[in-house]
């Protein structure tokens, strides 16, 4: 029997010079659930994703993904274990076509990659853009393509860093539908998102990060009532509640 958590983080710390971006974070992502990560700007959310995905290998602490200790592994190794991740600012490969962006993200031994890519593109109504270069897409489309290419390997856990930022309302709905579908198919997700109604709607559990520390954990209605959370959002200079 697999452990109930697909991701287990213990005492994760990260300093940038004198700035403590993560000050000992403990966190679990449960299998098949959508876990929200919220907190004011600069609270360390992206830094946490950087460490979990192996992009930043300077953090200390423990990270277990699906039973493997992954802190210090290169991203490609972590991806091979079944993790996928999108970036806060789109990093679609600009000189590759949409189709190539998806194909390059598939498993090398996946003989149905091309069909899978076409199917995914159809779902978000990008099928007519297959041969368009990444850089020719609108920003919102780029963010969608970035999300789709993570799906090419059917990861067990997907980290989404503000996937809807810069995406128009229509595409946004498509995106959240896709997230919901993924969960129904058994995928675990972790979501950084500023729109609280989205968090309320999608997330089974929410962690609130403030100045590198977890200040609350629970369902959305639980953390919303937490006075510390209120203070973090409304007493903070860089407030970003929206």
């Amino acid at each position, binding site marked *: 029997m697999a452990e109930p958590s697909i991701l287990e983080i213990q005492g994760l710390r990260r300093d940038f010079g004198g700035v403590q971006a993560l000050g000992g974070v403990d966190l679990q992502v449960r299998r098949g659930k959508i876990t929200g990560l919220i907190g004011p700007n600069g609270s360390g959310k992206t830094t946490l994703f950087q460490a979990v995905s192996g992009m930043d290998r300077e953090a200390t602490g423990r990270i277990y993904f699906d039973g493997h200790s992954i802190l210090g592994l290169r991203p490609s190794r972590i991806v*091979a274990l079944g993790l996928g991740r999108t*970036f806060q600012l789109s990093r679609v490969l600009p*000189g590759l076509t949409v189709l190539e962006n998806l194909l390059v993200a598939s498993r090398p031994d996946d003989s149905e990659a091309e069909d899978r890519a076409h199917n995914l593109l159809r779902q978000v109504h990008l099928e007519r853009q297959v041969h368009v270069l990444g850089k020719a897409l609108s920003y919102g489309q780029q963010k969608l393509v970035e999300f789709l*290419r993570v799906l090419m390997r059917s990861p067990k856990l997907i980290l989404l860093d503000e996937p809807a930022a810069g995406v128009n309302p229509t595409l946004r709905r498509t995106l959240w539908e896709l997230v919901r579908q993924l969960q129904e198919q058994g995928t675990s997700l972790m979501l950084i998102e500023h729109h609280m109604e989205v968090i309320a709607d999608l997330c089974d559990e929410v962690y609130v990060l403030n100045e590198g520390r977890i200040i609350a954990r629970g369902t959305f209605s639980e953390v919303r009532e937490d006075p510390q959370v209120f203070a973090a959002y409304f007493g903070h200079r860089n407030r970003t509640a929206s």
Partner: protein
Amino acid sequence: MRYSDLGIGALLLFFSLLAPGFLNNYQLSFLLQVLMMVTLAQSWNLISGMTGYISFGHGVFFGVGAYTGALLLMGGAFWWVAILSAALLAAALALPLGLLTLRLRGPYFAIAMLGLNEVGRILANLWVDLTGGGDGIALSPLLSPVLATNYFSMLALAVLATLGMGWILRSRFGLELRAIREDEEAAEMLGIDTIRNKLIAFTASALLPGAAGAIYAFYTSFIDPSSVFLPALNVQMIVVVLLGGRGTLWGPVLGAVLLMSVQELTWAEFPALHLALLGLLMILLVLYLPDGLLGAWKRIGSRYG
């Protein structure tokens, strides 16, 4: 490869195979040098055109190949054994060098490679027992293959290099290399083992320059440190690829034919200015024609086509 690519390739190959029948020795020599440049440029294209890691010192593999080929031939090896060994030694050298240098970000990699070519030249000068130092090595005409043999060997390399590039461009490996050029971190995050891929591309890109160096040594019958670890050669292969179009199949071929022809017609008159003119051309290409002639052709085609 697409049918049009196969067609172009077959036509060029047909001409090149018949060329010894109707060209004089001077013309055949020139064509041999064009084929050598095609080989070098395609190899450079593999690492630098595809991944964006600009090697300013790929000539080091040519130089190593030239010495290996010359020494083995003089030591009594069959000419083709000497060529094969030169290729393998160059690649064997590239592997550890790649492990060291490919961890560097692009600009530092470029500088490290620039230094390597100089190290090669200095070593060839200092290691007198092996290389004869600054006196160089004269190959006995009795042992060296004749011009036609060298020509066909070089042709085989150019064909191999171009076929290899055609295959890579259509393969998943090629796609992964292009992803690295676009955004290495993002590529790694998509599951691409960027270090392994760069290392394979780099090692493979040393193979044919090593072989070309050996054939060049047979062809000129004399090598010394400054003629095979030649700064201009490093710049030439870069200019050829930029001129034709980096990361494309025919760019290096087109670039080699054009650059070598222009050099033959003009710059041979100004040997002192040669390197400066090449450098200037490189800068102009980077600034005004970054996709090369094939890229510009495609753009014009899609605008008016």
